[in-house]
Every structure is written in structure tokens, then in C-alpha cells.
């Protein structure tokens, strides 16, 4: 059972919880769990769980392999601003106008401070936090995101994108199977949120189009890749760093909510402290 401390931290911080950046940095825990996969798998390795229809069953609770450690998280953040994204960040591909706009924005402008979820955070399944859960049926993959307590419904029954809905923070997702890989195509985003949080300036337009792939590298490792196109903002296709999540040692994700009650204080804090980073 994950401790309630994590939940309270996430609530109190209204999801500026800094530790998720560690997802990007190939932590030892995640790396260990990720080993022993793919070719040359030992004979006693657990088989990949499968649905009755033969597709991999990704149901379960997933996380990076470690809990949130606030003190270390801030240190990690100070040392590695945009660590793992760096020069390859979404914003590095901004066209000149967008780049100029980006330079005028900073932590205090992060929509996550208003309880608006980021699209990716470190990776879409965990959003602004650290933990996500998948519940899979033959026709649907549902992603439950702990922080902000949100969900995504990804139909896998061959239906096309919906043409009758307004743009949204998580966009409109449809999924399909390519062998053992789940490919999720996402369109119809609002232009309200950023791709990342923690003040990582990563705004986008409503022309954003993302493709996410999910693959069980082994029974206990979920490998996630994301590419994004935004012809209005970017000069090319952005590819997110590969993220590997492992099965979490607790049964369910918890209730956390973001209620905008701390927004003013958080913005003030972000303005003053810049999350421990040097001012740009």
C-alpha cells in the first residue's frame, strides 16, 4: 500500500510534485525492472498476460519504480532542468513566433497551477503525477490517472475519431493494435494546456496531433513512446523520450484532486522560487 503521504504531497502541491521528472532520467529502479526483457528472455520469465482475444493485457497499476522523494526530487530538478528532454524538448522545435512567446512565459504561467492537466507530463498514463492504472476490455482501454484523478477512454473497436465533440485537454483518442503494440492516435486538443508541467513551457495549438504507442517489453514493464506534430507551432515532429513503467507494488491508485484553492499561493511561490531553478 502506497503511503498516504504521497497523496497528501500531491494534493498539497497541486501537482507541482517535482519528482516525475525522474521518469525521464532512467532511474535505477526503472532500469532494473526493465532488464531481462525481450530477446533472450529466460525460460522461467513470466509470459506477457493476454486477453481472450490474444492481445496483450496491459491492465494494472504502473509507475516508474520509485516513490516520490521530495528532497531528492528538488535536487534532481535543480541539477537537471528539463532533464531527459533538454535540447530535444517540444519547445526546441518551436517556430520563431512560438519561440518568442515561449521566452516570455515561465513557471507561474503553467496551466497546471489552475488544475488544468498537462497532456503528457512525463508520459500520458501518469499525467502530472507518478502513477497510472489501465483497465482493459476487448473494446476499450481505459487509462486512470492518479494526479488530478482523471481518465482517458481509448476505444479499440475500430471506430474513427469523433467529429461531434469540442476540443479537450486530453484530446480525442482512438486505439488500434499493430501486433502486440497498442497505437493510440489523439487529435482534437484544446490549446488550453501544456504538454508538460513543472513550468516546462510547452504550449501547443489545437492542431496538435499525437501518436502514442504502448508495448509490454515483458510481463512487468510497459514501454511508452510518444510523437507529436503541431504544424502551427513546430518545425518538425517531436519525439518524446521513451518511458518505461513497471508494475506498482500497490493495488490501486488513490484519490487525489486539484481544486484551485491553492492556485494563488502556488503562482506566487512559483514566481518567487521558480521551483528551485535559476531564473532564465
Amino acid at each position: 500500500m502506497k503511503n498516504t503521504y504521497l497523496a497528501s504531497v500531491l494534493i498539497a502541491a497541486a501537482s507541482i510534485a517535482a519528482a516525475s521528472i525522474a521518469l525521464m532520467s532512467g532511474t535505477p529502479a526503472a532500469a532494473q525492472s526493465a532488464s531481462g526483457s525481450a530477446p533472450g528472455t529466460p525460460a522461467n520469465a513470466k509470459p506477457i498476460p493476454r486477453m481472450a482475444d490474444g492481445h496483450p493485457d496491459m491492465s494494472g497499476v504502473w509507475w516508474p519504480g520509485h516513490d516520490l522523494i521530495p528532497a531528492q526530487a528538488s535536487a534532481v530538478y535543480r541539477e537537471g532542468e528539463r532533464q531527459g528532454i533538454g535540447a530535444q524538448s517540444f519547445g526546441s522545435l518551436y517556430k520563431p513566433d512560438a519561440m518568442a512567446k515561449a521566452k516570455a512565459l515561465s513557471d507561474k504561467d503553467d496551466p497546471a497551477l489552475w488544475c488544468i492537466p498537462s497532456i503528457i507530463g512525463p508520459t500520458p498514463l501518469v499525467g502530472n503525477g507518478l502513477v497510472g492504472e489501465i483497465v482493459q476490455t476487448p473494446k476499450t482501454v481505459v487509462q486512470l490517472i492518479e494526479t488530478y484523478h482523471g481518465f482517458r477512454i481509448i476505444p479499440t473497436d475500430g471506430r474513427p475519431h469523433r467529429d461531434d465533440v469540442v476540443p479537450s485537454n486530453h484530446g480525442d483518442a482512438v486505439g488500434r493494435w499493430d501486433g502486440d503494440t497498442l497505437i493510440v492516435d489523439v487529435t482534437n486538443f484544446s490549446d488550453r494546456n501544456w504538454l508538460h508541467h513543472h513550468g516546462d513551457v510547452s504550449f501547443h495549438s489545437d492542431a496538435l496531433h499525437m501518436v502514442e504507442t504502448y508495448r509490454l517489453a515483458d510481463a512487468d514493464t510497459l514501454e511508452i513512446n510518444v510523437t507529436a506534430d503541431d504544424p502551427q507551432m513546430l518545425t518538425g515532429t517531436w519525439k518524446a523520450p521513451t518511458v518505461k513503467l513497471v508494475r506498482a507494488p500497490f493495488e490501486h491508485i488513490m484519490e487525489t484532486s486539484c481544486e484551485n484553492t491553492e492556485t494563488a499561493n502556488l503562482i506566487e511561490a512559483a514566481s518567487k522560487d521558480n521551483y528551485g531553478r535559476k531564473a532564465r
Partner: protein
Amino acid sequence: MTFLNTIVTTVALSAALYLVGPAVSAQRAAGPAAAPPAGDDPARKPTPRLRDGHPDLNGFWAIGRGPDTPVGSSFGERNAFIKRGARNAAAQYADPNQPPYKPELMPKVEELAKNESKVDTAFFCKPGGVPRIGPPHGIVQAPGMPIVLLYEVIAGNTFRLVPTDGRGHTANLEGLYYGDSIGRWEGDTLVVETVGFNDETWIGIYGWLHSTKMRVIERLSRVGDTLRYQATVEDPDVFTRPWTMNAWTSVRTTKELILENPPCVESDIDHVTSFDEKTRR
């Protein structure tokens, strides 16, 4: 941005008002307008089952025959204002199925009701909690996984997890909006028992407070393409006995999926003056 703020403000108010109490009169549900044409009654459709033998609750459920909306309306359109104002307040208080508050608490309940816009946390973008959130708009039921209840809420879509593997409540969980739920099957009825609440939320509008000792039992049963939902609230600190609220009936829909709403921002709450339930008599 001004335009956006206006929208957001409007949404904030809608969000606050959206969470009307489900425990209002069932008279509408029983009225002739609620009866679909013979032969087209979704309740007469077959009830599909999963391989484990339990009814298949998967799908999206429009609240079509609950107390607050007429047949055919979407689950996003429970009219926030329908139970407000003098007429509806009178109808509510005329409902014989009233929450059985201890007599000494009645003055407090009335006081809260008269100041709803100032003290009802639903006005401040807070989660509505259980059972105020009402029946689920979507259900995901996969073998070996907890049953997932999905809700389209203007204050922010949310979900609940209901493990049905026989486990007990998670220890030391408290102060939650949606509580800690465990489920079991009683015949074809999914029974969800939830504890671990905070005492910030109300059971419904009209100042229906509860304590952290609240225990909610929800019963969900699929009949054809309908879903019957009824909640019972036990709270020895505020009630003289368990209170079974009026039931809802939802209708399965393949047309609607859950939509995501803009964020709830309580930027205009100071200007709200007219929504208090102050026209009771």
C-alpha cells in the same frame, strides 16, 4: 482571455450547481412521461452477461429516468436549476422520503441550506463526493480488475474503483471525497460499500451534511438496457436511522461517450447571491 474567463466563470457556476442532490422526489420517474413506448422499453431488452456469469455493466449510461431529467436527455445535462427556486424547494420538502436527521441537527441543516452558496463546497469546485455524484455515466468491467465507475462532472471528470475480489476496506484511508469502496455481488446486483469520507461534502443540496463516519451502500443492477441505482446512507452521528434515497434509472447509450469539460474555476463565487435555498416556505 476575457472571453475565456467569462466562459470559465459560467462553467464554475454551472459546476457548482450541477451537483444537485439525487435524493429528490421520484414522482417524475413514476409519471407517464417517463414510460417509453411499449415494445421499445429498454428494460425489456436482454441482459447480457460476462463469462463469470455476472451481468455485463460495461457501457455508457444516460440518466434518462432519474428524478432530475426527462427521458432522452444526455447524462451531461442534468438541469442544475431544476430543483431550485420556491416551487422545487416546496416539492422537495413535500417528498416523504426525507433524510432522517437527528432533531437537534435540524436547525443546523436549515441554516446551511439558507446559506448554500456560501458554504456548499460544490460551489467552490470541490468534488461532489458520494452519494451526491449520483449514478455512474460509464462503467468498465474487466475480469481480474476492479470495476471502474466513470463520471462526467463539470467540476472535473472523475472515476471510482470498486474491487470485487472479496478484499476488505483499505486500512487507514480517511478524509476522502469519494471514499474507499469495495464491491460484492448479491445475485445480479452489484453492491458497493464505501467508507473513509471527509465531512466537507453534502449528501445533497438543502444543507444535507454528514460526518466522517458516513457509510454509503450503493446498489447497481442492470435490467435489459437500463441500470437501476439506489444509495443508502448510514451515519450514526447525524441520522437516527439508515436512509435509503430515491432510486435512479439510467438507460444504456451507444451514442454518447463521456465528454471532458473545461476546468472549474471559482472566480465569480463572490457575486453569487441568488441561489440559496431561502424560499422554502
